[in-house]
């Protein structure tokens, strides 16, 4: 039988607020174990939780970026279960009254058409402590690091609108882009600041049943999300074909073996309203103020880039995916650099260089002014593209001006006819058979000879002049 997959995602995102959700401890789970703790996040007797204003603001911003409606009143519940990573026998989470409901994200579906994926709700909750299992001699010991306990999370619960691994991956990508734009969250799956749980069920094509779902956890990259879902769809399809019933349970994705394995059922307890945490009542003024802080979001920005700067849809999309890049692009374009040229240089040279170095623009000395100046020098013909690329790499490492780097590094391109002619003559003399080839009609040889000449000039030859000389001498 042919089945259709019904997929919903529950995504935990760690907010990058300075403090934990209910106390003033730094929100830095990676510090020396148990350094960032206090009576509240250790839940010592007599402590009372104090909701962080910043965390609430960042959560609200994230909800707005995902097109959700902020609820006039929300509240925290105690999710009761006993586990050593929970210092108080319950986790504080907004179970009954979430912060926001009814959002959506648009993706481009596999058919190339826009597809709207709905978000059921977004709630705030605190993260739990980290357990470290070690051996003390031959005795296994479990250690608890409370640095992460109480750090602020939002959980984004989608509607079961996704039908394929592709949908799910696009949803996660789009959600990550939107959230990063708000500056509320870093959203790194590798570092665990964005964690995806997938709920998957199957149904015969053409029906609208909602069947028993299986939850899959432990995917640490977007690709793994796709692979785990794809695996689970096949696995469940085979079960159904064998008439095996699907039972509600949780499975873990094993990225090595590339399979999902059932995990021991984690007991899920009741949710009781917590009378000690203040209710959140949102006023219009406050919400207006948060809404004002919402930046122009990537979809709208891409449209504007196309219109204002004449970028193609693909260029506009590239220039708007990340907020930092989009702002950098716009600053460069405003300094008189042809926008498409700026976009092309950012995509083909700057972004890969940043990726190689695993940094963001702001983490380097590069400014939009210096980048624009480099492109301006390139435009005048003082340096060629090859040299410009070299200069760009230096701009990422020092704060010298592009002009200084060009002068000191002797990057000026050679536009001196006699110098270039000497190079060309030597190459033609050294490669008589290739010259014959060319004259015999093999035009490709020109590229090969040009490459040799460029190399001989140390990359500094003016390519336009070089070509003219070759054409003249071979003609």
């Amino acid at each position, binding site marked *: 039988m042919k089945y259709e997959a019904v997929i919903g995602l529950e995504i935990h995102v760690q907010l990058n607020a300075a403090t934990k959700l209910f106390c003033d401890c730094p929100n830095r789970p990676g510090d020396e174990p148990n350094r960032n703790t206090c009576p509240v996040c250790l839940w010592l*007797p*007599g402590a009372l939780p104090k909701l962080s204003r910043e965390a609430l603001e960042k959560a609200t911003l994230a909800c707005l970026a995902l097109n959700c409606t902020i609820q006039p009143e929300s509240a925290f519940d*105690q999710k009761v279960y006993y586990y*050593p990573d929970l210092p108080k026998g319950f986790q504080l989470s907004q179970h009954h009254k979430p912060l926001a409901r009814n959002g959506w994200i648009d993706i481009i579906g596999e058919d190339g058409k826009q597809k709207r994926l709905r978000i059921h709700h977004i709630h705030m909750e605190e993260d739990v402590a980290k357990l470290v299992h070690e051996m003390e001699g031959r005795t296994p010991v479990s250690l*608890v690091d409370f640095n992460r306990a109480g750090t602020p999370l939002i959980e984004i619960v989608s509607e079961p609108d996704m039908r394929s691994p592709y949908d799910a991956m696009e949803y996660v990508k789009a959600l990550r882009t939107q959230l990063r734009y708000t500056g509320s969250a870093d959203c790194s799956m590798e570092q665990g600041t964005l964690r995806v749980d997938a709920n998957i069920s199957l149904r015969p094509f053409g029906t609208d049943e909602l069947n028993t779902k299986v939850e899959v956890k432990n995917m640490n990259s977007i690709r793994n999300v796709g692979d785990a879902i794809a695996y689970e769809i096949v696995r469940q399809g085979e079960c159904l074909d064998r008439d095996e019933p699907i039972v509600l349970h949780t499975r873990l994705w094993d990225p090595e073996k590339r399979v999902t394995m059932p995990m021991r059922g984690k007991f899920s307890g009741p949710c*009781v309203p917590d009378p*000690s945490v*203040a209710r959140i009542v949102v006023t219009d003024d406050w919400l207006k103020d948060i809404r004002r802080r919402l930046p122009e979001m990537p979809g709208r920005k891409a449209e504007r880039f196309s219109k204002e700067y004449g970028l193609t849809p693909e260029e506009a999309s590239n220039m708007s995916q990340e907020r930092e890049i989009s702002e950098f692009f716009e600053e460069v374009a405003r300094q008189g650099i042809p926008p498409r040229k700026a976009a092309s240089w950012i995509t083909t040279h700057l972004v890969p260089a940043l990726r190689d170095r695993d940094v963001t623009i702001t983490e380097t000395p590069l400014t939009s002014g210096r980048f624009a100046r480099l492109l301006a020098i390139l435009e005048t013909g003082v340096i060629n593209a090859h040299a410009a690329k070299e200069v760009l790499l230096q701009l990422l490492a020092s704060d010298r001006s592009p002009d200084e780097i060009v002068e000191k590094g002797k990057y000026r391109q050679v536009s001196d006819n006699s110098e270039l002619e000497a190079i060309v003559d030597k190459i033609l003399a050294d490669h008589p058979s290739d010259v014959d080839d060319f004259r015999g009609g093999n035009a490709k040889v020109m590229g090969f000879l040009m490459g040799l000449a460029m190399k001989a000039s140390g990359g500094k030859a003016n390519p336009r002049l070089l070509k003219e000389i070759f054409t003249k001498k071979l003609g």
Partner: protein
Amino acid sequence: MRTTADIFTYKNTSQQERAKGGPLAGKRVVIQPNMCARGWLTDAGSRALEGFIALEDATVVARLREAGAQLAGSARMGELGFGLKGDTGAQAIAAGEADIALITDTMGEARVAAAAHGLFAFKASFGVISRFGLVGLVPSIESWGVLARDLEDIIAVMRAVTGKDENDPSMPDEEPPDLSNIGGPLMKGQTAGVIKECLGGLSVEEVRLFQTGLERLEQAGFTMQEVSFQDFGLFRVVHNVIGSVEASSSAGKYDGVRYGHRASSAKHWNEMYLNTRGESFGTLIKEYLFQGAYFQFENYRAFENACRIRGRLVRDTADLFKNVSVLAFPTRRLGLNAAAATSAREVYDAFSLTLPANITGQPALHVPSFARGPEGDMGMQLAAPRLADAGLLEIGKVLASAMSGAERK
């Protein structure tokens, strides 16, 4: 006769506070070990908090110190503040060890303890005193109770501790009662309501005793009015369901991981939890926690219903005050010794007349000797609308002076 060691969990021998002035200067206050005082053993009367030393003062404790009170120490208390078994706060006053005692009042502990020792007791409105530093059990119901021989001491404590606290954001956003000017004669036209359903379960002798108390109220200038509250019996059920559920959640943090008693051996963490919690809690609190866990895990609907009914009880009680200024109840049943209760049911039996004020969050005042017979003092308990703490204390002053006048005669 109890010795000092029987009365105190921690006896403060520091001389530091003695010389300080302030409205409570020279007053010795005994607290309970579920109220944090920096450096003091704060075990809430439970092995689950064995050896836990408070890191900082509760807001109430800090405010008492500021007002010049001399903190005599912390008394003994019923485990985690459930009931009065082993409670010695009132005895500390009776034995001359303190002038004032602070007791958490979750179902009427302060008022009932006072009735047994001839003291005044006041339970403040819910939410007007910070709960920061209180090792609580039932957060939506428990309140602070103040006991003293002299009502003026209670008023002075209330003035010192009432009011907003940035460390307790769960306090409602409202103006706390103004206690600055309490005094003067009883305003004319005050009416005391008596809920007839609350008398239903009393013996003939108890009703008779309570009637003498009501006559004294009339002599003090009150007009008496009988009112009906069909659902009076629901207060107890609602308290039991919500109270036990919140207690079960609150006690969830006592797992032996960070402090308190920990079982000596276990094969894995789950067994460590089970053994630790099994060894840490006494049978009475265990029964209560089990009840709460039952509602949490097996019968959540009952908890939801209790929350909904609580809302109705709060509204209906508020309606009663359209016709009366205060409600009068006996404080306790005669022949039921709250301190001797050995089951949750017996605890609830002993507090059936005081717990309504905990459900509604109203202030309640216990006045001693108004309904005293050969078998003991039933107590006269007056409850006012929430936040009417000042008016209730004012009425208390009038009754106190009427009482001392009567005794002089």
